[in-house]
């Protein structure tokens, strides 16, 4: 029994990394640009399908898809932000517009790849069933890769935001966009770059998903219940927080599904969300008063 529990904790920890990669883009644009871009869910899915397509058509290792997916995701996010800037939308409108984009992207995906399950062939995807043991606990390699990417993204983003000129500009815009502009910060350009980065992260999550999971257009619906608690728990715009929150949600959901069955996992994540909203609306990993 405790073996099963240990396994659940370790797997939950690793999949928490994937949750963090899925959430960090939404968290950044929400926290810094005040835009809840639901289209990130479609970009994750699009990243996954692109990986499937590239890997299957060219018969190459799926991780090579990162070379295409990251720049393409950046471009898509930048274009979306340019659209938001040009139309001068408010928060409510941006929510509706991104919702409309989800509908469009979702039916484009369904038209291209149909509603059937798609999976990268095992011959070209070495990761799917790859795992090794530490003691009695199995470590799944695709999840370990995602976890590594999550750590890289979290540390990289927080370094970028705290050390670079770009990061200082972002924080200035978060504090007060008008004053930032008065000090000569081109906040539109900064927003476009940030949105591009955020979308590139989301698309990257798609690559990892494609390495170990079957794809269908409807799987993205289920992500919502995970990503939202992670974003809130981690604190808006906080990349390291997203990693911590991803791990908490991953472990909690993993343990819950071992103890009370797999379907209880989403109930537990929802309860975590409610608790976070009630007791730490600014996120677990944000210092009090610094909002």
């Amino acid at each position, binding site marked *: 029994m405790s073996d099963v529990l240990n396994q659940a904790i370790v797997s939950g920890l690793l999949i928490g990394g994937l949750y963090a990669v899925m959430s960090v883009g939404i968290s950044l644009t*929400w926290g810094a640009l005040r835009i*809840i871009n639901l289209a990130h869910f479609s970009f994750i899915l699009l990243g996954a399908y692109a990986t499937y397509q590239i890997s299957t058509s060219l018969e190459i290792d799926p991780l090579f898809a990162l070379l295409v997916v990251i720049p393409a995701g950046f471009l898509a996010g930048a274009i979306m932000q340019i659209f938001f800037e040009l*139309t001068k*939308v408010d*928060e*409510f*409108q941006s*929510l*509706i*517009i991104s*919702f*409309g*984009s*989800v*509908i*469009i992207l*979702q*039916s*484009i995906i*369904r*038209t291209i790849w149909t509603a059937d399950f798609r999976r990268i062939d095992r011959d070209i995807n070495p990761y799917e069933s790859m795992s090794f043991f530490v003691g009695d606990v199995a470590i799944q390699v695709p999840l370990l890769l995602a976890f590594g990417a999550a750590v890289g993204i979290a540390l990289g983003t927080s370094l970028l935001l705290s050390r670079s000129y770009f990061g200082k500009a972002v924080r200035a815009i978060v504090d007060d966009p008008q004053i930032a502009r008065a000090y000569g910060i081109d906040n539109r350009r900064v927003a476009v770059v940030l949105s591009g980065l955020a979308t590139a992260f989301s698309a990257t999550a798609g690559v990892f998903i494609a390495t170990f999971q079957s794809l269908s257009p*409807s799987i993205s*619906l*289920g992500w*919502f*219940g995970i990503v*939202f*608690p992670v974003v*809130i728990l981690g604190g808006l715009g906080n990349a390291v927080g997203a990693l911590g929150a991803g791990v908490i949600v991953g472990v909690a959901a993993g343990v819950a599904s071992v103890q009370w*069955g797999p*379907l*209880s996992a*989403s*109930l537990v994540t*929802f309860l975590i*969300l*409610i608790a976070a*909203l*009630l007791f730490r*609306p600014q996120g677990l990993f944000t210092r009090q008063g610094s909002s």
Partner: protein
Amino acid sequence: MTRRTKALAGFAVAAIVINLVPALAEALDTPGFYITFMFTAFFWISQAVSWNILTGYSGYFSFGQGAWFGVGVYTTGVLAAKEGWPFLVALPIAGALAAAFGLGLGLVVFRLRKLSGEIFALTTLAVAFVLASVARLYSFIDGGRGIFMTGTPLPEFLGDFRTAMFRMTFVVAFLTVLAAYLLYESRVGWGLFAIRDDEQVAHGLGVPTFRYKMVALGTNAFFSGLMGGVWALQIGFVTVDDVFNIRVPLFVILMSVLGGMKHWMGPVVGAVIIYTLTDRLNSAGLEDVNQIIIGGLLIFLVLAVREGIYLRMRMRWILTLTVFGTAMAVWTFADLATSLIWDFAYASLITLLAVLLPTRQSVARVLRRGGPATPVEASAAERAST
């Protein structure tokens, strides 16, 4: 007569006329799909209007419509189809249970000191996912097997299945619109509009914000669940994926944004137009294109017609009636399309385009103030004319 008595008289007349429709249809021997078309329209009217009571009036954007609807569907599904309760006994429970879920959510989230609109919106979306997984988890609800509604007996006085659906959806839709109207013209409605504009100030001026938001959320969930309870019959075979999906919230948002969220009639107009157009696109075999059009339309509308078309129609009612009447007459008498529904769809589309054309007035207003015509002006004009 005051405006309110006039409006209530209008409601009464509408109720009587529409109730005669099934008998009339039988007498004229019209095809059954007309009745189906109408009661599906009633379904959407009720969903859109009830959603707007929360979101349009109070400004709290909700993705939770699918959750309330789903609770309603599964309530009559479990009680009437699985447990064998009389349908009309199970039906009110569907509404009550959905309202209880809504109020339960409100009790938690509206107590949060720093509840932002975004957090509320996403929490309502999460509720739908959780309810879906609960339904999948417990076999006394669904357990992943689905529920057959087809054998559910209905009381004889409701008529055959189609007529019964017509009558029940009509009653629910009628009550929903009536509730939306009565709230709109009441203290609660005004309190909610103040909350929408500036909740903190409203609270300071004496509006009991928590109670009013609960009223809005409870009413929304109640009518959505009640209609969901009826709609379980039309679905026939109820499954989690068909019920708790994004379709219901998507369409009510689209309908209300098109019709206008600041007036009780807006979602009624929006629901009729959107349902008619999507129904025709689907019947022409264009389901996939349909979704893309819907998404594109949503983006276009939220950018182009912020106040919704109902208030525009009202300001330009002569144009609206003339265009619609002419188009309807031309299509009907020239026999351009195969059915009255097609005639209606084309006439609606043409009217929609005519109303969306910019007026000289609105162009001048944009040039002068850099903003679109405000609903305030429309409502001021409306009040001046009564």
